[in-house]
């Protein structure tokens, strides 16, 4: 755990006045606040640092303690305990000031440095009351591509509760859905917050998913390619037999209409499956086979 220079984070001098700190903080907050940044994890991180710096420097008691111990902060708690035992402690570092209190959606993590210095994150009681609707939660859900093929239900553990959610077929990797009312409880009878669930899809199938279409490469022996025949092709819902015309070239693509991925929230609509044939040439020929290929070659040359 490293020492954090809160002055540096806000870009102010150690001698900065409360007004200068407030103004520096607002400037930084306009740049990094999650409400003016569209899902930018970097900005979110920066904002947490800025918020934490403000939390300390805008509070006279916290700022005093921070200044007092400085780089020697590791011993701060010990000094403090010793002082309190001498009878002079009256909780000098309570959280009781500040007009600007940001709440941010993930519940607001403070750094280890902050926590070891000031205890847990602050719950300011007398700042502007911003809470009515409950906080929103953000979470990730990892699912397999094969599961994303059908609309299905999944049980999630949200806090201590188990919640059954429906995942519509055709959800895309990285897509976020909002589950209304699955966030934190509201305050003063306010509505509950929402849960924003981002899906991370792991491809556990042989298919490549391109939007609503799927791609698959199918191997075929030389004889089927030359003479025509049938190949078995895997699809998301079982194998199908495909007729291969004689003289099928390597790399030829064929489209299986409606055998692709379901279109999100358009029940019964599917993309297509594109099958690319890869012709495998025979290797390790026997003498007899070699002889026959020579014969074929001579015949072809004559024509």
């Amino acid at each position, binding site marked *: 755990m490293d020492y954090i220079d809160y002055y540096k984070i806000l870009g102010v001098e150690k001698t900065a006045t409360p007004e200068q700190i407030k103004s520096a903080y607002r400037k930084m907050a306009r740049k990094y606040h999650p409400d003016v940044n569209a899902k930018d994890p970097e900005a979110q991180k920066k904002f947490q640092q800025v918020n934490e710096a403000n939390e300390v420097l805008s509070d006279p008691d916290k700022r005093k303690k921070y200044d007092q111990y400085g780089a020697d902060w590791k011993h701060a708690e010990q000094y403090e305990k010793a002082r309190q035992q001498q009878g002079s402690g009256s909780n000098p570092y309570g959280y009781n000031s500040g007009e600007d209190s940001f709440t941010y959606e993930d519940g607001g993590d403070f750094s280890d440095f902050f926590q070891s210095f000031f205890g847990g994150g602050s719950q300011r009681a007398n700042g502007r009351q911003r809470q009515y*609707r409950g906080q929103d939660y953000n979470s990730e859900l990892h699912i397999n591509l094969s599961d994303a093929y059908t609309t299905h239900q999944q049980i999630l553990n949200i806090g201590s509760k188990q919640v059954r959610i429906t995942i519509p077929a055709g959800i895309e990797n990285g897509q976020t859905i909002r589950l209304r009312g699955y966030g934190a409880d509201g305050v003063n009878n306010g*509505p509950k917050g929402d849960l924003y669930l981002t899906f991370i899809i792991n491809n556990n199938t042989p298919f490549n*998913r*391109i*939007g609503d279409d799927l791609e698959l490469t199918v191997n075929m022996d030389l004889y089927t390619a030359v003479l025509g025949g049938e190949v078995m092709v895997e699809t998301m819902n079982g194998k199908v037999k495909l007729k291969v015309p004689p003289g099928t070239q390597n790399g030829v693509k064929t489209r299986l209409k409606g055998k692709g991925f379901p279109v999100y929230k358009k029940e019964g609509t599917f993309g297509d499956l594109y099958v690319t044939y890869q012709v495998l040439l025979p290797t390790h020929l026997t003498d007899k086979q070699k002889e026959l290929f020579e014969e074929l070659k001579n015949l072809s040359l004559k024509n």
Partner: protein
Amino acid sequence: MEKALYLSFEECCVHYQVEATFIEALEAHGLVEAQTMGQQKFIAHDHLTDLERFITMHYELDINIEGIEVVSRLLRQMESMQNELRSLRNRLEE
């Protein structure tokens, strides 16, 4: 209109400690959608997320209504571009 799913402008002012004029200005600029019932105006619970964001922008970031209008529009554009980017990225990564 189901009362439980709406919050009156007055209640908004109490819960969020903001002036009525601010909420009225948001409505006038088309930033929040209000429903009128009798003499009172209401905001659907569904739109409270937006309202809260505007309150933060105004009271904590010192952005005026016109600024909020621009920021909101740009954020919406960014969001739709991010979605497009995600789709394109998924195509490339497969």
